[in-house]
């Protein structure tokens, strides 16, 4: 904390540490910025010195009908994943907030673990399982797989908001004559609304991000795991920069929207 006693600080060490922070952020942002820059660069094999400014990769992407189909699919899947994940995540967050029960640890583990399982393994297991129960090979299977990964994020965001709620608020509503369902509608949901919308956007962004690249690049109507496996064997072109930049801008828009909602303007976040 910088209001700490000045006596115990060494300006040289502080400056060195701050320089280190800047270097760390350079490392993190170098690939992101490079991708952005080279998406507007004419060269087929990007490097420096830069070629001339060009929107050729964007045009190439835009001219590809498969890309447009991919975009439609991605958006559709993203919207579905966002809504289902948020609904499931809300239920789980509320369950954790409100109830104690035998086996709750297991319940929470189920709710939160999926993102820690490596994508390769999840992909393999999903693909094998879903094809077994005849669910593979369509957008539905992608939605299913993504909800498994995204619901935990939605739960975390909404649970955080619930933990900011005065624990007396819900019983206070019951006490004033609101049934559990009425309390849900008139108290819990209004209170968590910013987090619900935030979770919606964040899960959409996660889904969009995971899905878009694979779909855009291979452009085929396959399931996600197949596509990821297939894509890895295939070739990439600077088009991926254009797509990546587009996806990034879209995701960030969603995330910033979520952030605005979560950090709350106006009455939604009371400090009491």
């Amino acid at each position, binding site marked *: 904390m910088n209001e700490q006693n000045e006596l115990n600080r060494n300006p040289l060490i502080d400056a060195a540490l701050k320089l280190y922070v800047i270097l760390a952020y350079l490392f993190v942002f170098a690939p992101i910025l490079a991708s952005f820059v080279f998406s507007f660069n004419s060269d087929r094999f990007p490097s420096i010195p830069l070629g001339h400014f060009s929107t050729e990769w964007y045009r190439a992407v835009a001219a590809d009908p498969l890309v447009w189909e991919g975009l439609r699919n991605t958006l559709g899947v993203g919207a579905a994943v966002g809504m289902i994940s948020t609904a499931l995540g809300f239920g789980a967050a509320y369950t954790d907030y409100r109830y104690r029960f035998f086996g709750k640890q297991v319940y929470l583990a189920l709710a939160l673990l999926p993102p820690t399982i490596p994508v390769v393994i999840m992909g393999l297991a999903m693909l094998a399982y879903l094809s077994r129960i005849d669910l593979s090979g369509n957008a539905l299977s992608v939605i299913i797989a993504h909800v498994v990964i995204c619901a935990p994020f939605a739960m975390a965001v909404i649970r955080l908001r619930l933990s900011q709620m*005065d624990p007396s608020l819900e019983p*206070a509503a019951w006490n004033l004559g609101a049934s559990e369902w009425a309390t849900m509608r008139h108290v819990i949901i209004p209170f968590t609304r910013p987090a619900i919308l935030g979770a919606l956007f964040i899960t959409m962004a996660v889904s969009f991000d995971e899905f878009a690249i694979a779909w855009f690049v291979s452009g085929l109507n396959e399931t996600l795991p197949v596509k990821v496996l297939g894509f890895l064997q295939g070739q990439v072109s600077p088009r991926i920069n254009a797509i990546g930049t587009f996806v990034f801008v879209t995701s960030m828009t969603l995330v910033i929207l979520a952030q605005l909602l979560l950090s709350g303007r106006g009455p939604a976040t*009371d400090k009491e």
Partner: protein
Amino acid sequence: MQEPLVSFEGVAKRFGSYVAVQKMDLQIHKGEFLAIMGSSGCGKTTTLRMLAGLEAPSEGVIRLAGQAINDLPSWSRDTPMVWQSLALFPFLNVIENVEFALKMRGIGRAERRRRAEQWLERMQIAEFADRNIAQLSGGQRQRVALARSLVVEPEILLLDEPLSALDAALKVRMQSVLKNLQRETGITFVYVTHSQSEAFSMADRVVIMSRGKIEQIGTPQEIYRTPRTRFVADFLGSSNIFPGQLTRDAGGRAAIATPSGDFVLAGGGQGATPGQAASLIVLDTKMQIHFQPPPDAVNTIEARMIGEEFIGATATIYFETGAGQEIRVQKSHEELADLPLAVGRSFHLSWSPADGHLVPE
């Protein structure tokens, strides 16, 4: 006597192996201001929450207006509560908060607005009707919380340490607001607090609880003058407690033998049997201080002064007897003016047998 508004009949509450409230019987009368007082964990809040339907009693029956309400969910009881945190809905403005209970009862928009406005008026916060809760001061929020609970015009209002978040001056002002409100509306108030001054200044009757058990029920005067148990005497803090054994003095009078000396009891010791362990309770205001040994006093002790404390018009002087017992004496400044008070100096303390009473050990 008329039927009580609320009665707890053998009500107990356990959380697992932890006993929050031991089997208890309590009647709350219509129109009274009842305070339930005790330190944290004594079961006072659990008692209130059982009445509000937020905790189910482990055994016993709770009746409201004669009807058993054990199985009634919280939202079907008319037992509105003012919460320690106030629990105002932050996403609703002032008047929407007040309207909430009416809305849940299916009352039409115009009617509920009218009734809410009436209560805002009454609580003198009408001008804040459209404000957000976050924009209000502590005292204003308090009034909103009261209006929100009272708008349904209940027979009983539960208050769970509602003043604990306020500063001292505001607390005193809100106490008189609450007391007046209770008097004007005639609504039964059940007020849970850990503060003796709040309970004693507002309540008609006070219930003192400890470890899930009712220690004493009575008017503030009764409890203050004659604490019935050692715990109550200790808890109120204004009594001197002499633990000892009942005996007879040389003259055959009932007395108690304590490490600090033998003291005579009034009225033959209330039928106590000699040999029994008991504690003598003497209020700090009933103790007299003398520099010279008082010639005619029955009960006296010599004690060394160890400290003094001035609060407003009165002073509390602390003494220690030879046996190590601490004694407090409260006096006005005038009464102390003639005494050569100094820490370390010895004095003689006395009291009349009529000012002491026994509590069981």
